């Protein structure tokens, strides 16, 4: 299959796939969606590479109950603890991703946090934390089923981040019937590699 044919076939609205790759997926979305209403605070420089941004945490906290349904503990303190613990693990996970992938995650959240984008996606002016579960669910479902690759990718990323953060925790294991990892003692008969050098 020739390269031009391939790109024509996969073109997304008026933006070519190749053009998107060059600009970075969500950097482009920011420009594209922000451009609809010609405003937005713009991207902040620096800060990439140290875990989740405050906007990221706010958005994930908002959508977690919608994604996880009845799996989240119902009562206030337990629910808050499950969300806090999950976000803390996820924060550390993100901090170990390569710079380009951390940049992509950060771009995603920065873009979603632009008010014109919020209006476009959730149909209201509320901050993510204040959106109704119905508005959030409707946004997630339409992104998942969208004809636009970029929105389907947004859904997949958001859903994955929530799943990663939640199912890593013992509180989740109980609800899915996973007894947890075995408790093991190191076997002294097996040789170990120890660092005896300069490390």
């Amino acid at each position, binding site marked *: 299959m020739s390269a031009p044919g391939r790109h024509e076939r996969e073109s997304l609205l008026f933006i070519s796939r190749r053009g998107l790759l060059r600009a970075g997926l969500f950097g482009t979305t920011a420009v594209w969606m922000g451009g609809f209403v010609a405003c937005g605070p713009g991207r902040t420089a620096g800060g990439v590479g140290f875990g989740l941004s405050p906007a990221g945490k706010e958005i994930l906290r908002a959508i977690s109950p919608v994604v996880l349904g009845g799996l989240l503990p119902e009562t206030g303190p337990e629910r808050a603890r499950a969300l806090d613990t999950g976000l803390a693990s996820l924060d550390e996970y993100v901090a170990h991703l390569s710079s380009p992938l951390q940049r992509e995650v950060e771009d995603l959240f920065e873009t979603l946090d632009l008010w014109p984008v919020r209006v476009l996606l959730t149909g209201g002016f509320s901050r993510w934390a204040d959106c109704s579960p119905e508005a959030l669910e409707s946004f997630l479902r339409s992104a998942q089923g969208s004809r636009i690759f970029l929105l389907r990718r947004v859904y997949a990323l958001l859903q994955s981040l929530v799943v990663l953060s939640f199912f890593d925790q013992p509180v989740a294991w109980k609800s*899915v019937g996973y007894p947890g990892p075995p408790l093991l003692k190191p076997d002294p008969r097996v040789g*170990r590699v120890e660092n005896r050098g300069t490390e």
Partner: protein
Amino acid sequence: MSTHEIYSGAALERDLHLEADVVIVGSGAGGGVTAEILSQAGLRVVLLEEGAHRTSSDFDLRELSTFAKLYYDGGLRPTSDGAMGIVQGRTVGGSTTVNWTSCFRTPEQTLRFWREQLGLEGMTSADLEPWFERMEARLSIRPWEFPNLNNQAMANGAEKLGWRYGAIPRNVLNCLNLGYCGLGCPMDRKQSMLVTTVPAALDHGAAMATRVRVERLEWSGDRVTGVDAITLDETGVHPSGHRVRVEAPWVVVAAGAINTPGLLMRSEVPDPHRLLGKRTFLQMHNYSLAVMPDRLDPFYGAPQSIYSDEFTWRDGVAGRAGFNLEAVGAQPVASMNFFKGMGDDLEAFARALPHRHTMVAQIRDGFHSESPGGQVELRTDGSAVLDYPINDYIWDGVRSSYLVMAECQFAAGATEVRPATSDAAGYRSWAEARSAISSLPLRAPNVFLNSTHPLGGCGMGRDATRGVVRPDGRHHQLENLMVIDGSVFPTSLGVNPSLSIYALAARNAEKLVATIAGRGPKDHANSAERHPTREVN
């Protein structure tokens, strides 16, 4: 007991300048085997590794932190458009530290294709047999006889349908059947490079520097003259401010698919026929998620022990996309990652985890004109990323393998089967599944695809117009540069690749030993030194 010479870039407080006979970039399947063979032959080896030196005492069997620490991009390394993720280890031992121990010889069909279609010589089953035998002995590879219920269910389905299937040979010694291969074996029973070839090389005087990222090979004329790296902090993300330089008469790059061609591209090595980074293959994995009437507890027991190659070559080697089949067992995070639904759907799916039966089809690529693979590209920061467009050839393999997996799972007694795409529902019978899957919309990234088998990008070829390296791993243009890892394969393999990499690495490392011995002291820069490597200040 000898003291091992190990440096960590995260702890270094100065630049490091080393000399050796051979410098190896990467400590995984290719680099580990090469390091052991060269150091046992008396050569002074320096091993450079981007990951950290984590061992069984660090392996706490927790998923998310392990993915963060032992895998590249946490196991989600995206292709350039984010349509799928690539799973690669980034730790001492490379992917062998976290793989699921499935060790197959390279199929005869693949070797014949390389010989007849690509003109590769010296790569018949008979040529490679001694190397397979050697590595099978070294890594204790033998068929596993105690499948867990998850794998047994797949065997039951295949048996009922009259398909070919068998026990997977695994590289384990006194395995306790815990099921945590993907999180680093906590009991050191998996015979990964971490506990076999790397410590053996260190015992023979090899030096290792971890948490260093090789930025560039410096070359001049037809020779590589040095390897330049930077040190990384504890996370392995940020530079920690020092440089590491290694000079050696021979340079072996073993950073795996994507990163090996990426390093060669960053170094702007000669590439007169524009082959570098092209034909990178993924043997793309797609999944089928079933519910069985009885508990399987798929999170325990060897995750992979039964395979079927009934459909790998069904339509001919160069025909429609073929795939091999395996069972998948994993802990909650990895298991749930296959499912992209939400709300009540996700809850119901999650609560069935003990009854979950997951199958994977690995779609071989590179054997057909419509299957050219992907292309490694460099981002503006110099990091490597794979551009891999999913075309109709691949989608055909996805659909036909969804069908086959559903049929197998229903034959094994499944009460529900759901292809791993958020556009599908759970189906209650084979008839329902067959009809629904036949017309299912297939689109990225709703179809969950990933790959634990990135291969190619520095393909072997008998001459410079057909490959980046020769069949013995030597670079076609730079005479003291070798590539010894999964990036040298000219197609995907049709099986899990680890044993193919081990065996070819052993053969090519022995050839390098013979070449160096034949050339005499010119290539033995430090042969007078007793110290394994020489630090130069």
